[in-house]
């Protein structure tokens, strides 16, 4: 049962988080990633004569590959501890979650390990991502039909 006197004392000895610093680093990292992505697309469009759509896809593939590769080297999780959501919210976070789940369960084999656990974390993102895209798409369609 909750004891208000205990809560009072426990609150005095609560760990402090440097939220401003964390938010600033995440913001900076997210921005740099965006800048990098845009730069890569520009390079692909200018030097490899790709269309803008194709350039975007290649940039995403590159980011997914880099995040997975750095995760497998054990570098990415250290970067996440510093830059937090700046790396977890972009597509790098999605790739990171899948690679880490696979690495984590590789000792249990291809079927019971990697196969059934790859989407352990990413599954939530996919499920709600696809569901909300469907719902919002339906709403947009309805609005267009009515208007």
């Amino acid at each position, binding site marked *: *049962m*909750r*004891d208000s*006197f*205990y809560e009072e*004392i*426990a609150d*005095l*000895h*609560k*760990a*402090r*988080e440097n939220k401003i610093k*964390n938010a600033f680093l995440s913001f900076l990292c997210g921005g740099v990633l965006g800048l990098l992505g845009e730069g890569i697309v520009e390079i692909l469009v200018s030097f490899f004569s790709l269309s803008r759509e194709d350039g975007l896809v290649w940039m995403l593939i590159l980011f997914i590959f880099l995040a997975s590769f750095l*995760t*497998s080297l*054990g570098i*990415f*999780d*250290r*970067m*996440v*501890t510093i830059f*937090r959501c700046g*790396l977890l919210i972009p597509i790098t976070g999605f790739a*990171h*979650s899948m*690679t*880490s*789940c696979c*690495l*984590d*369960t590789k*000792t249990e084999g291809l079927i019971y390990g990697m196969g059934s656990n790859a989407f*352990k*974390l990413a599954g939530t993102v996919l499920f709600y991502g696809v569901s909300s895209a469907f719902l919002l798409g339906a709403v947009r369609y309805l609005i267009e039909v009515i208007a």
Partner: protein
Amino acid sequence: MTIHYQNVYLQDTACVCGPYEKKGPLGKYFDKTYSDFYCGESSFEKAEVKMVKDSIQCLLKKSSLAKEDIDLVVGGDLLNQITATTYGSYGVGQGFVGIYGACSSSVLGLILGSTFIENGFASNVIGVVSSHNLTSEKQFRYPIEYGAPRPNSATFTATGAASCLLTSQKSSIRMECATIGRSIDYGQNDSNDMGRVMAPAAIDTLTRHFQETGRGVEDYDWILTGDLGVYGKEIVKEYLLKKYSIDLEKKYDDCGVLLYDLEKQKEVKAGGSGPACSPLVVYSYFVSQLRKKKIKRILFLATGALFSPLFLYQKENILSICHAVSLEVVD
């Protein structure tokens, strides 16, 4: 509930640990250390089993006993179905009792083993516990390689295995008495702030121990809690002082704080945790101090959080428990 023992002795202890504990301030007191998390095995779970085996082997060597001379092995860990101690202690002793007290398993094992010896059912009992930072991350939190940010209140599961031999034969350290803890619910549910969750259990067991034995802080040279970390430790000190007027003075510390160098090893955040955390500190440094007679009597309170991720997702509170034993030097 406090039990007094007349003829239970702590013969030997053996501690095996991983890389972070090795780099900590108590590194030189451990019997065997590993520089990586695999310990030469193919998975982290197998590495934990290996550490349990090493620890028991080291203990048997120290006490010049054979596997068959052991009457009972009492052990536990954090893995599902307490598999690390089950597999690790395979082939040792005439009987095995698997226990689960989360991070309080070490003292729970000591209490059970001592009770068997006191009643004459066994003469040599091994108490063993283990934990592995990465297997428990996998078990309780996120995948190992997933860099989920941890708040500053989080503790770091210790990697290691610690075992001790309890006997009916006289030795220099005696198991003097024990207080069995009860589950405590203070409405806490933050699994990233275990100090706050478990401090009430430590306070409850300590105050009941003092009431039931009529003792106070002055009767002990050291009072050690298991794995409350820096924040939990301060909560215990202040709550005891303000509510019960018990001043722990400078005789109190927390094993989770002692196991690592919190200034240099920033990644451990608030300190160590896990079933192996407190015995790694008590069985190595404090037992050697008792043996050298530099200290006379210590109270060892191992704290544990009794919960599972499943119950947490179902919005249940985290229960906590704390068991205490008093170890004293035999004159």
